[in-house]
């Protein structure tokens, strides 16, 4: 009972707050993000280029900058650097964020799923899988 009341209150406040939905997001959970990343595995891997570029070291690098990957002109000319903000924008709607991108994918529409996914990419980008430079 003692825990139910605050929970109910939070729910009521959350509903009342309405538009402040963004604040209701949890911090990104890499474990949950790994499950979201399963959607990307037809085209991407962490450690090597496939239909899409490799994701090791993604955060902090220039968009369209993995050597040997054949990027679209659109991606190469963004001048973006991948960080949680640019990734959130791109992954929400790739074709709208970077018109002309060759990543023909509708995106991850759920903001919490994006946050989890980005937390995973951030963590995985420095994981064991990314340590030995492999081809």
């Amino acid at each position: 009972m003692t825990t139910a009341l605050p929970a109910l209150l939070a729910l009521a406040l959350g509903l009342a707050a309405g538009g402040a939905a963004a604040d209701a997001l949890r911090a990104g959970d890499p474990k949950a993000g790994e499950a979201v990343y399963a959607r990307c595995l037809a085209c991407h891997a962490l450690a090597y280029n496939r239909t899409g570029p490799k994701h090791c070291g993604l955060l902090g690098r220039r968009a369209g900058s993995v050597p040997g990957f054949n990027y679209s002109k659109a991606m190469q000319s963004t001048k973006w650097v991948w960080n949680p903000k640019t990734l959130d924008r791109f992954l929400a709607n790739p074709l709208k964020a970077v018109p002309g991108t060759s990543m023909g994918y509708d995106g991850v529409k759920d903001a919490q799923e994006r946050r989890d996914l980005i937390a995973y990419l951030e963590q995985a980008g420095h994981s064991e899988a990314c340590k030995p430079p492999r081809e």
Partner: protein
Amino acid sequence: MTSRIQTPDAGLTASLQNAPDREARRSFLGQSGLLLSGAAIALLAGRDALAKGKPSTASDVNVLNSALGAELEAIAAYQVGAESGLLQKPVLHLAVTFQGHHKEHADLLAKTIAKLGGQLVSAKAQYSFPVETLKTQNDVLRFAAMLEKGAVSAYLGAVPVFNNRELAKAAASILGDEAMHWAILRNALGEDPVPSAFMS
């Protein structure tokens, strides 16, 4: 329409499995006209089907090309699996059958891209696969299941971004096939074949 679907010529299939090079692919492309599903036939029937509704755009060609890239990789992945010596009889048959489906998908996508005047991506000379982690039949099955699930998600992400609805329909038709592969592979692994009501 289903009555027109024929079994591929065994010799041709075997030669493709052994030599998935451009020439073999080309002859496959030349002879496989009767193997296509109703949706495929509608697409290949001519510009009419593609001309229905909103026209196809350069962006549609991009989407088709990334799907083609993933299909070509899946064909190569099943080849690695089939040649690994790790797959036993009934499972080996599954791998060869599923590889055949991916060849048909790739074939259809390539023809459609060509019809739209797009530049085709071609199969890479070399694909990277995590072969060092594939030590048992189940490892291979898990790897294949991961690719098939990813393919379902990729087509799911492609359906809403096509400008042309006939292309979206064709993508959905392929998606259904990949979802069946995924379920059968999970079943072969002893996992719940259909773990949820929705795919994402």
